């Protein structure tokens, strides 16, 4: 395997991460927020893959990303279920409408 420059990949990962965070903070739609989460996780995933290639991390990195994908799926499932439940109760998935609990 020929060595590659990890920096572009890492930069993309970082961008993904930041995009995810921005998405989470700006989206009012619950699904949108969850998508932001996915972006964040995948930003990290990209890092793992990159590092598995460029550092002694090796295969561990790939295993990491596999687990992350699985867990992200599980989390997404639960999150969607909760979102659905929220919708059932509030008839909206605008997260800003959930402001009964505060103070």
């Amino acid at each position, binding site marked *: 395997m020929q060595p590659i420059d990890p920096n572009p990949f890492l930069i993309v990962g970082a961008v993904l991460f930041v995009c995810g965070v921005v998405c989470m903070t700006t989206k009012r739609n619950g699904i949108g*927020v969850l998508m932001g989460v996915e972006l964040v996780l995948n930003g990290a995933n990209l890092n793992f893959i990159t590092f598995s290639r460029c550092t002694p991390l090796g295969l561990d990195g790939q295993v990491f990303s596999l687990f992350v994908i699985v867990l992200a799926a599980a989390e997404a499932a639960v999150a969607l279920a909760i979102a659905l439940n929220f919708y059932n109760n509030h008839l909206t998935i605008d997260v800003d409408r959930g402001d009964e609990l*505060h103070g």
Partner: protein
Amino acid sequence: MDSLGNTLANLLTIAWLLPLFGFVVQILFAHKWGRKSKAAAYLAIFCIGTGFVCSATAFYKWDKQAGHLVFKEAKPAATEVAEPKNDSKAEVTEEAHPKKHSGRQTVFSGTFYQLAQFGDLQLSLDYYIDSLTLAMFVMVTLIATCIHIFATGYMSEELVEDYVDHQVHSHDGGHFHRPGRFYRFFSYLSLFCFAMLGLVIAGNIFQVFVFWELVGICSYLLIGFYVERHSASTAANKAFIVNRVGDFGFIIGLMILWTSFGTFNFADQHVSDGGVKPGLFSMVTRDHHGEFPKSADGKEVVLTTQQDGHGAWQVPPETSPRKTIAYTLLIVAGLGVFGGCVGKSAQFPLQTWLPDAMEGPTPVSALVHSATMVAAGVYLAGRFYPMFVPEVLLVIAYVGCITAFVAATIAIVATDIKKVLAYSTISQLGYMMLGLGVGGWGAGLFHLITHAFFKSLMFLCSGSVIAGCHHEQEMPKMGGLLRKMPITALTMLVGVIAIAGLAIPGIYLKFWSFVPYLSVYEDHGYVLSFSGYHSKDAILATALAYTKLNPLHFLLFLIPLLTAGITSFYMFRLWFYTFLGKPRDQHLHEHVHESPWVMTAPLLVLSFFAAFCALGGEHHGSLFGVLHHSEPVHVHHGFEAANSVSLPSHQAIEDSHASAGQAALLAAFVGMALSYLIYGKGVVNPDEIQRQASGVHAFLANKWGFDDLYDVMFVKPAHVVAKFAAAIDKFVFDEILHTFVRMGIAVSKWDRKFDEGVIDGIVNLMGNSTHSLGISLRNVQTGKIRQYVTFIAVSVVTLFVLLFALYPKG
């Protein structure tokens, strides 16, 4: 301790504790005997009477030891002792050992029990018995017995289930009804006797303070005996609190003594390891010139804490550790203790409580507020005399002088019979203080004893009058009572003559030789007079000698002399006003009656003593001789100081005696004469003068023609001065007192505000601010999930930046 000492201690202790026993029994059981029972009175009389017997016995035993000053057994012994008294040179050697007289011990001290001990500091209840103690004991128990008996009659109105207090009105406007409190009165009296005797027997200044407070509280209880009367309870409070002001000084004095001397004991003490610990009086000694041993710079007084081979106390050598006290501290300590005396003896400027204290029943005024408790201040000043330096004595003299004069002038205008006597008491106490202050130790205490007799007599007489007049105390409503109450009137006259100091000079005393114990005087010329003359004479003589030595302080003789005249004036005014002339209130007069024997008998007894107790005066009199026994050593020689006040020696006093005595007598006669002209003869209408003096009308010509003269020369100035003094008393001293009280209350209010506002406020503020901070923190928790997530990102960045910004370098 030899057997005589033990005997004396035991006898006096019995006399001292019996009233306490009486008190306890009465307070616990008297209410069971019923309100109509006189048993409490009998018990109290029994206790105090037995106390008198014990005291008298003790006195007799002591006298036997000391050389038969009073009770002679054989003539030779008497002359032997009596003669050297006049020979001051012969006494020099003897007086070097103060506790010994004629080689015999006359001072006895010891300890009852120890209160506490801290290292070598110890506090105990001690006794200190010398002739002064004994004289006081006999005086107090005797007078108290008389007053107890008198009170049995006087207070008999209380022997009812339903007592009507005419001075108190209940809600519905009627008079106040309450159960009688006969037994309560006697229990308080017993407690007072106990406290007073304890004060006298006390062997250390701390113990004096203890009983000082106790007599104070008894006085409080007795003044406030009619608790329902607001004036009474206020007067009681005033008395106690004003006394406490004096005690404040007393405590400061105590603190200084305790810290500088390490002991409170008057007498030396035998400590457990066999040594002797010097008492206060042993530590402050003067040389033959009256000088203290001083340190090199002259500012410190070195205490004599080491005994030489003969048992005399002397300054320890330079090499060994010395105890010293700054001379200024000694002054402050003296002033402090005297401050206590000022309060207790109602001296200027704390005299205001005593007139108010007349709210108490009259026997109380007679016992507590004339004869005994108020005299305790004088007693203490006398007892503590060795510790007073000349500067303190000067202050004492001036205080006494001012008090005597101010009170006397006020007494001129007083119309309440008891008030007159009260002011008179204050004035006489001022005399005593003056006597002590000018170096007349014996003179001051002499007057204390004589005054006790005649003043208690007069108070009882006034009590008899008041009882006879159905609790009317205003003299303007009396008059012409002589015929209705002869015994009272005559005994009162004895008192009046005694206090005025009237005498018939030059009568030889052969006449008296049938009285066995008086035969000692038979060879000497003697003025025929009652007790007051002698003692006042002694004080004025000392004062004259003093002003000769210290011309700067000439007022210390002139004012007392003037006061002697005023005293005579107002006392006779009282007597004339009350007993002579026409009845001014016919209705009252009709119901007046002489008091029963239970009240008049004590009057007779007391009048006997008021007349004759000072027989022989200060030259040959047994009373003065007895007191003289306890005189502090240094007094005899006086004190000559170049840059300070000097004190007269006995010789100097003796030299001034004749002139002072004549002057005083003259003043007394003038006073009496004026009084007679105005009140007795009615030459001038007192009411008229009063009106003029009050300035309501213009000056009125008097038909007798003498009016103007009297008025301008005597009455008006006197009244003006009196009014002024009264006003000063009322508007200045009372005002100062009230201002202090108001200030105190204001401060306390401020204090309360401060407490509730500031301190609590700070606490509450802290509480509230944290609380409101907590509440406001709730706003951070907006409930918006998107904000929360934003916080995550912001926080991470912030923490990252912070971590680097504050990262510990290196």
